[in-house]
């Protein structure tokens, strides 16, 4: 059995399904991110793990022991689960100093005074707050309060650490710094982490495993690389990174398939559920699109791939790369990334080639 296991977990409020039949296994020491759009049930799932929300159905196990089981009538209260949690609002107690905040979980466990002191110091060091022990939360910056919240959550060496969008109220710069620190803390403590976020960058940077959710269901589970390279559907591809989508007819040739879209011939690396001769949806990333200006294309230096004709619609500068919008056949808009040399202008005629694409299930809107 896995270290933490959610089995057929569902939650509904007044007939409104918020989490639907979630199954999830988490290994010891794993860093798992729950990722998904707002309202998809991430927080609810996390709070069911913590014990603040009682599931409507299913079972939750940790270290082979049930935390919740509808059938067995077991529901361990939050304080007995030995789980640490960091809240979006930090939830640092304003009437206690930094030291008292971090010491509180230990105090409840009747830890000896000297030991509390030692462990709190250790925790304060872990989050780089040395010297601020006697401060009240109102005398700390947002980032510092967040560190207190993290130290408080890990000081009792919990079996599992839950974080609910812990960085969403920090500014972009600080956020990046903090997620490196969270990563460092995780490495140093070897703790098992479930991290809720709707920021795909955060999830990619931090996790072993990303669990993508939508409308209360798990859509895909895999390593960041897995999900980026082989998204299960358009939703996943679009949520993790940027994605373009085109319709075509599947033709399988050898190992790799080839998609033929009316006037285009395209090698596709990974064909899934695409039947020979059937309509299929395929999907590719902006960085896998090559843009060739019309004159160059007409000079005949194309690479053997088929090309699609289009017109540049917009251009955005991102420093390390340039994003272009390209209109194909006056109906489909494709996003493409290219280097920042040889600038093209909106209105320029171009051809594009696509050198890596995959098929996915039909887009469901």
């Amino acid at each position, binding site marked *: 059995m896995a270290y933490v296991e959610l089995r057929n977990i569902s939650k509904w409020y007044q007939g409104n399904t918020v989490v639907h039949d979630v199954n999830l296994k988490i290994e010891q020491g794993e860093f798992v991110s729950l990722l998904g759009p707002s309202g998809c049930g991430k927080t609810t799932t996390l709070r069911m793990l913590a014990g603040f929300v009682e599931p409507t159905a299913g079972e939750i196990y940790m270290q082979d022991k049930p935390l919740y089981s509808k059938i067995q009538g077991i529901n361990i209260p939050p304080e007995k689960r*030995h789980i640490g949690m960091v809240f979006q609002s930090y939830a640092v107690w304003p009437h206690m100093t930094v030291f008292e905040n971090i010491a509180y979980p230990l105090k409840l466990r009747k830890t000896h005074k000297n030991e509390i002191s030692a462990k709190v110091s250790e925790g304060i060091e872990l989050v780089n707050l040395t010297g601020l022990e006697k401060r009240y939360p109102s005398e700390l910056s*947002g980032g510092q309060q967040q560190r207190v919240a993290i130290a408080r*959550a890990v000081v009792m060496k919990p079996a599992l650490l839950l974080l609910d969008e812990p960085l969403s109220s920090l500014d972009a710069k600080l956020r990046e710094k903090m997620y490196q620190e969270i990563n460092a803390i995780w490495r140093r403590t070897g703790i098992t982490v479930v991290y809720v976020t709707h920021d795909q960058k955060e999830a990619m940077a931090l996790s072993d495993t990303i669990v993508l959710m939508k409308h209360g269901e798990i859509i895909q589970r895999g390593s960041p690389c897995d999900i980026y390279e082989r998204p299960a559907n358009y939703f996943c591809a679009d949520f993790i990174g940027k994605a373009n989508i085109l319709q075509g007819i599947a033709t399988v040739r050898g190992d790799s398939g080839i998609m033929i879209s009316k006037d285009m011939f395209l090698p596709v690396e990974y064909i899934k559920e695409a039947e020979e001769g059937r309509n299929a949806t395929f999907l590719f990333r902006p960085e896998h699109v090559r843009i060739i200006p019309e004159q160059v294309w007409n000079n005949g230096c194309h690479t053997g791939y088929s090309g699609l004709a289009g017109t540049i619609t917009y251009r955005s500068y991102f420093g390390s790369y340039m994003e272009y919008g390209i209109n194909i056949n006056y109906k489909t808009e494709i996003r493409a990334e290219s280097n920042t040399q040889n600038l093209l202008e909106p209105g320029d005629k171009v051809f594009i080639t696509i050198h890596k694409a995959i098929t996915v299930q039909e887009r469901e809107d």
Partner: protein
Amino acid sequence: MKFRLTARTMLFLLVILLVLVIDVYPMLNMLLKSVQSTQGLTFQHFIDVFRDSRNIEAIANTFVVASSATCLSLILGTGLAYLTNLTDMPGHRFLRVLSVIPLFTPPFIYAMAWQQLFNPAGYANKLYMVMFSTREPLFNIYGPAGIILVMSAGSFATVFLITEGAFRQMDSALEEAGMACGATPMRVLKDITIPIMLPNILAAAIVVFITEISNFGIPAILGFQVSYYVLTTRIYEVLNEFYREDSFEAASAMSIILLVLALLSLWLKDRAIKQGRYEIAGATMGQQARVKLGIIKFPISIFVTILLLISSVVPLIAIGLTSLIKAYGLSPHFSNLTLANFTGVIGLSLVKKAFANSLGLSVASATIAVVIGTIIAYILTRTNWKIRRWLDIAVATPYALPGTIVALAMILAFSRPLPLLGISLYNTFWIILVAYIARYLFFVVRTVSAAIMQVNPDLEEAARISGATWYKSIRDVLLPQVRKSLISSWILVFSHTISELTLSILLWSAGNETIAVAVFNLQETGNLTSSSALAMILLLVSLGGYLLIEYVNQVNQLKTGQSIRIER
């Protein structure tokens, strides 16, 4: 949500049961009593009430007195709010302080003070007669005119505070926009300012109206002398007509009439607020343009100051004087002053007993109300129990309704022996305690639930996940956050109950007098110097309470800064 019978659930259920027993049951029981006879349901009691012309008169008087006082308060209150907030009249800070003094004074003490000024041989009348060498007094306080005057003097501050808030919220840009469209200042007042203000003014009017129809102390002190009765005093009278067999039934039928009046007004207020609450987006914070009064601002300021001094301060000086004078009627020469009234009145064994009673009642009711009220506030703000709405109403009702009704409901509910215990609370200390708790629980619930709502629930959950049980998460995290509200609601209940008259006057019995009852009885027997001395002590205690609340608020603000709050 599945229902588990944990210790917490049990605690909540216990508290809800208590609310049922002390709030809901007495009210429903009284409703039932008013339509019950030995033969079953009947409207006979109501018919009897309307047969007696004295009752009809009391109803009519209630209307006359309450609506006149409401009108007068409205004029004084809004006028003052306008002058102090929207014009450049000098001295508005000082005037604001003056105008809220009556709010901290128990109304019956206020009535006593006015009575000492304007009874036919009162200080003001005597002064007038000497100055103008006449035998006619300037104004006789006894009767409807005096009652209306004292009620208004005591209530216009309420109107002032409510409308002042509305005036402040009023965006001067709204008025400027009107002027830019070409409206004259008068048109702006009529078409923009007043329509926007109207819901607030209406709400204030109804609050005052309910206060007036509920008032007992003022019509008792200024009406009994000349046999002028309103509903509350008439109910008191009927309950004291021991020779009547149906005095309870008659009183409850009359209470129902009063109740209907109060409920109707409350309903009107709700409607007024719902219909006309204009959310003024981005309420103005900056300087509001003040109307320039020009040269007449000084006479206006002086006039208002004198008016406020007369209505707020002079009566208290009068009662202070009486408390220090050797015998009422002597001229206030220095040689006629003495502290003997204070020592004398405190020496009375009756007063000693009353002090002990009141102190015990107030401390006990404040403490119990804070404990129960906090739990109710928690249920209201932190659970999703369906019963919350009803609980809220059940707690608010005894406060919103006239005290006379609450007292009568208590008598009817607890005159019979309690089940199991077999003892009756009637004519004991305990019925007063129950009534105090039932009536003032609302203060605690309102104050504490507002405070709890300010605390992010994450804070408690953070404690739970750290290993704290529910009880410890409340004790270590929630309660320290709302400590200020606990302390101020305790003081609030204490300072209201220590000078409470309306409930006590109907519920007291020999040996169970409260201080207010003692003051009232001394006053009624004509012992003005003693009653004034006692009233002064009461005043100081209430005033001390309010100052203490202010102090607690300030200290708390200094100590703990803002916590991070994120709306859920």
